[in-house]
């Protein structure tokens, strides 16, 4: 029996809200928006932690400029702080080495991080998700109960088809969707007209800068 699953709820019990940032596609701005939201919430006085679950191409440490930090071990792993937010990332352990992980490795590493990280009291735990609709999406659903999903979309037709699949999937499962942020807006094109029928909030748009 794997003991890690039994500790998950206790590990997350001091976390008020879990926001998982998704979209299914790569390069839509999930990581940038995760970090920007986290920093802004922190500036507003909330206690924020970020978890990078894009295990084979993590980004949050680069966006936050997190060099030379490493977690402490004290009855678990204490995530170090950078720019006022706690950051948990596999980068502490892989350094810059290529570290190919197959699906079961991804799930195991995710469970390991979730079972061992001591978040402390946190208002928002923001989870940066990898592209793809697979192991991490399924593992957040089964292991991070109570997660709310934030969808990042953009005007590209290539992005839309996958975003719709993600929305359908979360809706099927009655999971809470906070809404859609449309990123990289240029000109008039928007994915929102195709998404508005799903009954989820439109949270705003960010221009391509």
């Amino acid at each position, binding site marked *: *029996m*794997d*003991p*890690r*699953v*039994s*500790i998950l709820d*206790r590990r997350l019990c001091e976390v008020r809200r879990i926001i998982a940032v998704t979209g299914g596609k790569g390069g839509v701005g999930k990581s940038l928006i995760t970090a920007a939201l986290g920093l802004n919430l922190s500036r507003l006085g909330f206690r924020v932690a970020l978890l990078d679950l894009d295990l084979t191409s993590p980004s949050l440490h680069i966006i936050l400029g997190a060099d030379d930090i490493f*977690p402490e*071990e004290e*009855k*678990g*792993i204490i995530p170090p702080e950078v720019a006022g937010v706690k950051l948990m990332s*596999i980068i*502490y*352990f*892989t*350094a810059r*080495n*290529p*570290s*190919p*992980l*197959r699906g*079961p*490795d*991804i799930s*195991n*590493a995710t469970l*390991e*991080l979730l*079972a*061992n990280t001591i978040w402390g009291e946190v208002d928002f735990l923001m989870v940066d998700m990898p592209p793809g609709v697979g192991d991490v999406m399924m593992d957040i659903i089964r292991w991070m109960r109570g997660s709310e999903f934030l969808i990042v979309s953009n005007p590209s037709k290539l992005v839309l088809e996958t975003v719709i699949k993600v929305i359908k999937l979360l809706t099927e499962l009655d999971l809470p969707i906070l809404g859609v942020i449309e990123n990289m807006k240029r000109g008039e094109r928007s994915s929102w007209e195709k998404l508005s029928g799903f009954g989820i909030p439109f949270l705003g748009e960010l221009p391509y800068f």
Partner: protein
Amino acid sequence: MAEAVIAAVIDEAEREGLDKVTEIMVRVGGLQQMENEVFEFALNELKGAYGGSILEDARIILEREDAVLRCRFCGNEWKFSGIRLCEDEYEAIHFCPEVSHAYIRCPSCKSPDFDLLTGRGVSIAWIKGVKGEEDGSESEHP
């Protein structure tokens, strides 16, 4: 991890309707690189702190499991204990065994595409306990 083991044993004892747990067999994989004594001490501490009366008489037995890796590219199998890494690398693997994919390659073909066959983590091999009046009822978990 010790906390997770104690939490899992309590969960399992409840599922099985045990009133007392008498023995806990914990298997510790080689990739975890934990000292038996240190881990046993931590388990016994937490047993007292969280376990309440269910765990007070539980004897904890640790069993080490060798870590064996198998290459998906060429089929080669090898033991973690037979390779040499630097201290930071051992520490990283202790924290998260999957990051062995950042530091270890198949000794026969250089591939990073290997599975952690055995000895990855900590698992509860079985627990024994008693239910109500009757003694010695046993519950095993693979």
